């Protein structure tokens, strides 16, 4: 049997279609139209690069990246199965020799590549911000910091993509249901944390003890893992990523802070994808891998 890499990527038409075929411009557009769409993004990007190079603001870059992936990860993934049901291509795909793993991973990995591309756009911004802000840090540590930040955010985006893909399949409906699920995810991932932050701020104003997740070192090295605040940490990568900024030089930083959250995200993502592959294999009576 061929290695998974070959079956899931190299010899997988589903992966190639979703990465290249589906994203192609089907109607040739004049250059001015393409430029007029692309130019604002390019201008904003370079303006942002100038701002962070001048003022630092690594926390702003982290927040922007998380927010961008917050929206993009579900947006890119929510229609992958819904589109098959809506356009009635699913039955035709089921009748091919592709395994459940090839179908699921072909779709997922195409979005993974896109996520990496989007995340990589933020790497220069992170580097510029860190270079301006961290006078107390040696260059190798700065690179390590940047890698850890990307690790947390990208692994979290992978989890969001996996969950969105799972929803897209299990809803078993067309694009309207997929769009509703996307809206639901935006609410849960985007709006709810804002409400949560507001709630915590109000608590502080009312005189309640500081509920900051970042005071975890007081709980000891491993106890934080089981603490009530563990789930929100997994849930919200900003806490983990900004924590990296806070703990960058602290000798009391929690053990594997940032690395561990990324691992948790990825373990959950693998579990979700595995469950999805098993569901597809069972429903279609196909081989799992």
């Amino acid at each position, binding site marked *: 049997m061929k290695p998974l890499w070959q079956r899931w990527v190299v010899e997988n*038409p589903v992966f190639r279609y979703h990465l290249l075929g589906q994203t192609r411009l*089907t109607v040739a557009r004049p250059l001015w139209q393409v430029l007029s769409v692309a130019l604002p993004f390019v201008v904003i990007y370079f303006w942002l690069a100038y701002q962070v190079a001048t003022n630092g603001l690594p926390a702003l870059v982290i927040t922007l990246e998380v927010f961008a992936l917050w929206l993009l990860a579900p947006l890119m993934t929510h229609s992958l199965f819904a589109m098959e049901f809506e356009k009635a291509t699913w039955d035709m795909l089921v*009748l091919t020799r592709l395994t459940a793993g090839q179908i699921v991973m072909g779709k997922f990995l195409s979005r993974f590549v896109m996520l990496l591309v989007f995340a990589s756009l933020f790497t220069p911004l992170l580097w510029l911000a860190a270079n301006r802000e961290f006078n107390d840090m040696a260059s190798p540590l700065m690179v390590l910091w940047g890698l850890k930040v990307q690790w947390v955010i990208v692994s979290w985006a992978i989890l969001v993509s996996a969950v969105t893909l799972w929803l897209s399949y299990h809803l078993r409906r067309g694009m309207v249901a997929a769009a509703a699920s996307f809206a639901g995810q935006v609410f849960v991932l985007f709006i709810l944390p804002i409400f949560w932050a507001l709630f915590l701020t109000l608590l502080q104003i009312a005189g309640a003890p500081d509920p900051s997740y970042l005071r975890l070192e007081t709980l000891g090295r491993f106890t934080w893992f089981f603490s009530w605040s563990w789930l929100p940490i997994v849930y919200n990568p900003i806490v983990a990523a900004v924590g990296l900024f806070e703990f960058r030089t602290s000798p009391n930083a929690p053990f594997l802070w940032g690395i561990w959250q990324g691992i948790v995200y990825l373990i959950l993502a693998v579990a979700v994808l595995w469950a999805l592959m098993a569901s597809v294999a069972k429903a279609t009576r196909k081989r799992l891998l």
Partner: protein
Amino acid sequence: MEDGEGRVGRADRKGRKVMAMLEVRNLRKEFGQLVAVKDLSFTLQPGDIFGYIGPNGAGKTTTLRMLATLLEPTSGTAIINGVDIVKEPEAARPLIGFMPDFFGLYEGITAYEYLAFFAEAYGIPPAERKQVIENVLELTDLTVKRDANVETLSRGMQQRLCLAKTLLHDPLLLLLDEPASGLDPRARAELKELLKEIGAMGKIVIVSSHILPELSDFCNKIGIIEKGDLLLWGDVETILRQLQPTKLLTIRCLDGAEKLSEWLNRQPEIVNTQIVNSTVQAQFVGDDEAQAELLRRLILDGHRIATFTETTMDLEDVFLRVTKGEVA
């Protein structure tokens, strides 16, 4: 007849055992209380084009989806070339080509890329892919549209493209669910020709439809399903003979219909006559020889015959006679 390996076979005219290419055995599908398909059984041979007829909601699509391994039967099975579709769905799929009633096309790619996608998905070796795609494009008359975006193709062309996709892996059994629905008369005629060609290639073709004239031209076998029950199935000619024990002769005589009717009623082969406008319709029992003899006697007795035609039953008559217009 079952051999030691549990495969279904039958003896040919010379007593040699041949494999029945498709044997459907007691296929049944229940959706809760609703029995969509009730214990279907039939056998088809290579080259058979089977017209699967029934009103909307009769169970045609459910049957085809079960045969295509997309739906698991509640009980029963079907054997395709010795492969059990229930026990070995993955082994059966390469033998099956299924064109659903409502099908979609992947967006943003050309007809050639669409076929290349499925050629790879069907596991056709890279070295053969190009040739296979060219062949099906030619067979379905789509070579000129190979670089056209699939979304820009007309409904008829999309139908042909879907059929080309269905033929890519050279399946033994083709399941076509309402293939002509939504097509204009020209596209329908072209599809008919194409299906005849495919039948001549020795494949088994099952075509479901409720538009009977489109099936009558090229199906050699039919099955009529109503409310999940297969009411009858077999050779078209045999069924017509069974359902029409008497022939209907329409005769027009220049000397008047009443005189002719009286003469016909005296003949032993004639069961009944009826005058319709200026012609006589006579129910006749006998073979072609007896029919020719009747015509000879008519002329010898001095009747001036202007027309003498046999009105045969068509699929629509068969369908109306067999079904009650009920749905499951």
